[in-house]
């Protein structure tokens, strides 16, 4: 056969299947590995955020406790401060080295250029020096806690660094990849040693030891972060596909090699596990990585288990003989199990574990708990969910531990502070909550003494997070309690970092607490005011930013608090340049709106000079701030239109209304906003006149920017200000811009619509031109262009009618009618909407094309599945049914009714509502019988939504045509044996009574028998819906004399009060409430009294609930109905209500 063979099914190409098969063969492949990586917080965050791993936590001894117990505290504030100073010094020296190194490198570079290979002697010398320096470095670390060595450090420093620097330059050239252990060994015995090494040889043991968290080079005994040995690496990494790469020639490890036995480490109370016992377990766990356990002895099933978890939970992974363990060890394992359950367990497991750990928190003690929790939080592979759960554990545990937490405050802070600068809002909130609870538990004094050392920490990251943490403390314990401390810090003479951080704390307080700073505004401003004249630029900048934050938070009040910073600020803007000028301007911008209108103009004049100068700036940040300040100036009351027009506008337009500004999204927005704000003062004509010519600019983004500005200005201020000449230019420009657009944009459309609508009747001379543009574009090749033209018609229809151009409208209507065959749904939707808009303004009788032609054309379009088309169509049809139903034959309407049923299934509520309303309109013009028949038949369909909408439509028909037309049909339909139909009828009836209100009185008796049947049905839903009907009925007939039938219904509803299904009981309770309105609370009370003191609790509970709602609904009205219980009086308690027994 010559014809190609037919294939009976299609499948994926062979190569693809092959690829998957290969992938399946490679065992360890994990298709989710990439996403797992993204879930990790550390992998996602910036380097700045990850600086948290470099932080170092120390014990913060509980000074209060020590005082009570009368012993000396170790590792307290003093040591922390000393440590911090040392660290700072270290940082400084390191910087100096780097600086020198860089210089030398530059010099060396030059040398290298001359002579490519450095002489051997130089290299050897360098190696020796380097070795010496390596030793030095380590030594220095371990001397951290030694006071003498600190002194020494200072003394020898110059020399030392000199020496180091000599070694530093050639350092790069040496390969030390696997030489490190040798270096370590060589370290002590010396060879050629630097003098520095000899000094602190006999370092006395210092009890206080810092726990250094997770910085790999710092914590030798921390097995989680120790260096992996070659064996371990072999176990972890697959053997195939990996090669051991030789390090690049210039590589020298930055961090000291591992393995140094420090006796001090074992004393630490932190998370330490004996190396011998679990190194094997960890290795095994690492080796077993592919088949990680999901079931762990004593823990049960887990949701997941990561290889990293094996390190932390090694102890509970293997079976142990529990009898050999000490109490502490048992406790430790218990905590680990609970934590593992919380971190990795399924929700129910997690919940119980969380409750247990909370309940037992005080038994476990702060130490063991935090030693386990905190390292987990510092794990690099931590994911959001795990972090959230662990933070939750800390939160719960904090509550229980209260002041026991004191020694761990700093450790907790180190872990929690990074949350304060997380990108995730909820993480920030969690962090704030923990710190605020922590400060409540530990107390202000302890918090301050713990965080004080970090205030002038060498690392900016630490200072930043500490400032935020302090602001949380301030909000938790109140600003006044922190004020004296803040004052002291902001005036610190010792270091500018402290001042900087202090001022930043104030800024953060303002940002976080908002207008709650108002009562303390003066104090806060006084605290930081002097910072404006600080000799450090950074401090000045931060002060200005803090003032800006304070002013923003306190707006529009509190100008008097800023009195004494006004002068420095305004003087400052003349003195400073660059970043600090930007900050000063920002502060001024926020203070201006607080000022009195009389004074503000003077200050604005002062600042305008600088602003205008800075208009020229090339700095983006400065540009943004300048624009913002101009906007704020323009918004103040005190500035006059005259001033803006004369002094600001010329330069402003010269600097900012240039094409370049339209290219950057943020600049674009800023310029538009500022110009609109200026227009509020300067007027429409002034602004529009300046930019209207730019509508014909050749750059499209720029035209768009002009258009958007004009739109906003005209929308807020109207077009009455625009004179005839400007009007010509404006309309001309708009038409040009609209025609020339290459990307069909909402901006152009909105602009056109807004301007034309604002001009109103003045647009008449241009209409012919505009409409011919539209007509032209309606026939464009591009669907987008056609859609936009139709949308424009929708917006212009009203104005065209106002101008009396009915001719144009009917022409547009006809063209649109011809376009109804449009195949792009979006465009079709717009076209129908435009047709609808024209029909709206013209009216059904004048509509061209005539309605009798238009509607039959719409019927098939109703089947279109596109939402926009559906909505536009149903709106148009509904409008026709409402206004001009008589122009269309009844048979057409019936056809539409059937089509409309499909729309009841639409996802969009607007469509369903429009469809349901259309049923009402159609029923009104045709009479209800036929429509009702369609709807009642629709109750038999499967989809619930369709049935529900039918019931609503029935109710609407009943409302528009009178209930008497529908209720008999509904009652008749109720006799069908089908469940869905009966429920549908009940629902329809409930809507009917809801809509008709008091008219229900006429129909109450006729539905009673049906309700009897429904309320005694076995089916819950029947009783529920019937209760809803009773509710609406009872509320409708209240006060209309239907008490007898209502009482009967009440008797049928009442036994349902013991139902437990939430919807049913809800409906029943509402019915009973409604009965209170109709029958009066007295009758209801007599029902309720039967069970208030029933021997069965379940009965009492239900009756009391009814009593409570009755009581709250009619407290006063119940008074005469309470039973006379005088005979219950006994002893001192007299229960007679004498006042009610009086007679005249």
């Amino acid at each position, binding site marked *: 056969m010559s014809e190609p063979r037919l294939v009976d099914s299609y499948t994926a190409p062979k190569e693809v299947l092959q690829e998957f098969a290969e992938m399946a063969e490679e065992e360890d492949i994990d298709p989710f590995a990439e996403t797992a990586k993204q879930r990790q917080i550390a992998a996602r965050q910036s380097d700045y955020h990850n600086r948290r791993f470099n932080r170092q936590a120390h014990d913060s001894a509980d000074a209060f406790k020590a005082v009570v117990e009368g012993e000396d505290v170790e590792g307290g504030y003093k040591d922390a401060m000393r440590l911090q100073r040392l660290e700072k010094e270290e940082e400084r020296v390191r910087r100096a080295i780097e600086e020198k190194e860089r210089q030398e490198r530059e010099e060396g570079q030059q040398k290298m250029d001359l002579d490519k290979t450095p002489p051997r002697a130089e290299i050897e010398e360098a190696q020796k020096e380097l070795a010496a320096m390596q030793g030095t470095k380590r030594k220095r670390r371990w001397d951290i806690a030694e006071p003498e060595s600190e002194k020494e450090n200072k003394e020898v420093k110059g020399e030392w660094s000199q020496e180091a620097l000599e070694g530093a330059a050639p350092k790069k050239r040496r390969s030390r990849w696997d030489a490190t252990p040798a270096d370590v060994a060589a370290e002590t015995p010396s060879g050629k040693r630097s003098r520095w090494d000899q000094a602190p040889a006999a370092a006395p043991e210092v009890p206080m030891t810092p726990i250094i968290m997770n910085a790999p080079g710092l914590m030798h005994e921390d097995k989680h972060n120790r260096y992996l040995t070659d064996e371990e690496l072999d176990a972890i990494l697959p053997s195939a596909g990996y090669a051991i790469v030789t390090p690049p020639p210039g590589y020298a490890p930055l961090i000291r090699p591992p393995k140094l036995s420090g006796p001090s480490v074992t004393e630490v109370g932190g998370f330490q596990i004996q190396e011998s016992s679990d190194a094997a377990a960890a290795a095994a766990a690492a080796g077993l990585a592919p088949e990680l356990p999901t079931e762990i002895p004593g823990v049960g099933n887990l949701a997941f288990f990561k290889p990293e978890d094996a390190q932390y939970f090694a102890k509970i992974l293997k079976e142990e003989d529990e009898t050999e363990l000490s109490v502490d060890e048992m406790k430790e394992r218990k905590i680990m199990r609970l934590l593992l359950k919380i971190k990795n367990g399924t929700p129910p497991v997690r919940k119980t574990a969380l409750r247990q750990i909370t309940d037992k928190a005080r038994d476990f003690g702060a130490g063991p708990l935090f030693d386990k929790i905190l390292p987990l939080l510092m794990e690099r592979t931590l994911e959001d969910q795990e972090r959230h759960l662990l933070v939750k554990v800390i939160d719960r545990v904090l509550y229980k531990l209260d002041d026991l937490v004191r020694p761990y405050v700093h450790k907790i802070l180190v872990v929690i502070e990074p949350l304060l600068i997380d990108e995730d809002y909820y993480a920030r909130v969690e962090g704030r909550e923990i710190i605020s609870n922590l400060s409540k538990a530990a107390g202000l004094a302890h918090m301050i003494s713990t965080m004080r050392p970090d205030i002038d920490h060498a690392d900016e990251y630490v200072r930043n997070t500490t400032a935020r943490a302090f602001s949380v403390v301030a909000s938790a314990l109140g600003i006044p309690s922190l004020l004296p401390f803040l004052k002291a810090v902001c005036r610190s003479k010792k270091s500018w970092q402290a001042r900087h951080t202090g001022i930043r704390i104030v800024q953060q307080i303002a940002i976080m607490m908002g207008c709650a700073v108002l009562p303390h505004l003066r104090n806060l401003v006084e605290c930081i005011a002097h910072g404006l004249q600080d000799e450090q630029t950074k401090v000045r900048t931060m002060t200005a930013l803090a003032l800006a934050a304070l002013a923003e938070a306190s707006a529009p009040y509190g100008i008097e608090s800023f009195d004494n910073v006004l002068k420095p600020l305004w003087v400052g803007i003349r003195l400073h340049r660059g970043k600090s000028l930007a900050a000063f301007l920002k502060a001024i911008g926020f203070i201006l709106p607080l000022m009195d209108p009389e004074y503000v103009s003077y200050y604005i004049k002062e600042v305008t000079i600088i602003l205008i100068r800075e208009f020229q700036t090339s700095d983006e940040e400065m540009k943004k701030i300048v624009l913002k300040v101009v906007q704020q100036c323009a918004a103040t009351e005190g500035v006059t239109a005259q001033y803006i027009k004369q002094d600001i506008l010329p330069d402003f337009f010269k600097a900012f209304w240039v094409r370049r500004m339209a290219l950057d999204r943020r600049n674009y927005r800023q310029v538009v906003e500022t110009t609109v704000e200026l227009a509020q003062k300067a007027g429409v004509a002034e602004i529009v006149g300046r930019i209207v010519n730019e509508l014909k600019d050749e750059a499209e983004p720029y035209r768009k920017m002009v258009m958007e500005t004009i739109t906003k200005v005209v929308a807020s201020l109207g077009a009455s200000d625009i004179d005839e000449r400007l009007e010509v230019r404006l309309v001309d420009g708009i038409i040009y811009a609209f025609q020339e657009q290459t990307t069909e944009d909402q901006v152009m459309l909105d602009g056109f619509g807004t301007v034309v609508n604002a001009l109103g009747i003045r647009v008449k001379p241009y209409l012919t031109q505009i409409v011919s543009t539209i007509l032209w574009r309606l026939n464009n090749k591009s669907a987008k262009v056609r859609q936009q033209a139709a949308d424009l018609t929708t917006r212009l229809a009203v104005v065209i009618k106002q101008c009396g151009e009915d001719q144009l409208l009917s022409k547009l209507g006809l063209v649109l009618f011809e376009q109804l065959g449009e195949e792009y749904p979006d465009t079709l939707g717009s076209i129908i909407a435009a047709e609808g808009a024209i029909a709206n303004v013209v009216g059904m009788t004048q509509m061209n094309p005539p309605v009798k032609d238009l509607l039959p054309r719409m019927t098939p379009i109703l089947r279109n599945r596109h939402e926009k088309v559906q909505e536009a169509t149903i709106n148009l049809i509904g409008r026709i049914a409402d206004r001009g139903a008589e122009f269309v034959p009844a048979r057409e309407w019936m056809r539409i009714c059937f089509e409309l049923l499909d729309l009841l299934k639409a996802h969009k509520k607007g469509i369903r509502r429009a469809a349901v309303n259309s049923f009402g309109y159609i029923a009104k013009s045709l009479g209800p019988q036929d429509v009702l028949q369609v709807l009642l038949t629709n109750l038999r369909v499967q989809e619930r939504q369709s049935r529900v909408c039918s019931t609503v439509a029935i109710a609407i028909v009943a409302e528009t045509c009178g209930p008497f037309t529908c209720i008999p049909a509904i009652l008749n339909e109720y006799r069908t044996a089908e469940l869905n139909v009966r429920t549908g009828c009940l629902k329809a009836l409930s809507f009917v009574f809801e809509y008709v209100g008091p008219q229900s009185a006429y129909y109450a008796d006729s539905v009673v028998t049906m309700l009897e049947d429904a309320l005694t049905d076995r089916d819950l839903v029947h009783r529920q819906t019937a209760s809803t009907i009773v509710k609406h009925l009872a509320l409708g007939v209240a006060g209309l004399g239907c008490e007898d039938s209502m009482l009967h219904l009440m008797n049928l509803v009442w036994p349902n009060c013991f139902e437990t299904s939430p919807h049913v009981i809800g409906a029943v309770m509402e019915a009973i409430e409604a009965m209170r309105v109709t029958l009066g609370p007295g009758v209801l009370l007599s029902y309720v009294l039967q069970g208030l003191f029933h021997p069965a609790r379940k009965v009492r509970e239900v009756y009391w609930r009814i009593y409570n*709602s009755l009581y709250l609904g009619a407290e006063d009205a119940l008074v005469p109905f309470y039973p006379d219980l005088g005979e219950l009086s006994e002893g001192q*308690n007299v229960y007679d209500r004498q006042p009610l027994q009086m007679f005249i």
Partner: protein
Amino acid sequence: MSSELRYTANTQLEHLHARYTGTGHADLTKYEWLTHQHRDTLSSIVGHPTLTSYLAIADGEAVGRVRFEMTERMLQPCGPPPPKDD
């Protein structure tokens, strides 16, 4: 409250109710309930001027005096709480 209802919207309503004085629960004692009734009665009298003047006429007292006495009596309208017997 029965456990089935614990998670429904009605629970919230119930909590809301419990925040008002005068509402009750399954363990309310006779004394507490009646005390609330008496207070309601007294406040109703004070709140309806017609009732107050009716009582004033019946008692032969000034309206202000009646209102004052009713208000005073609200403190412990049924006497001191009975001793707990357990």
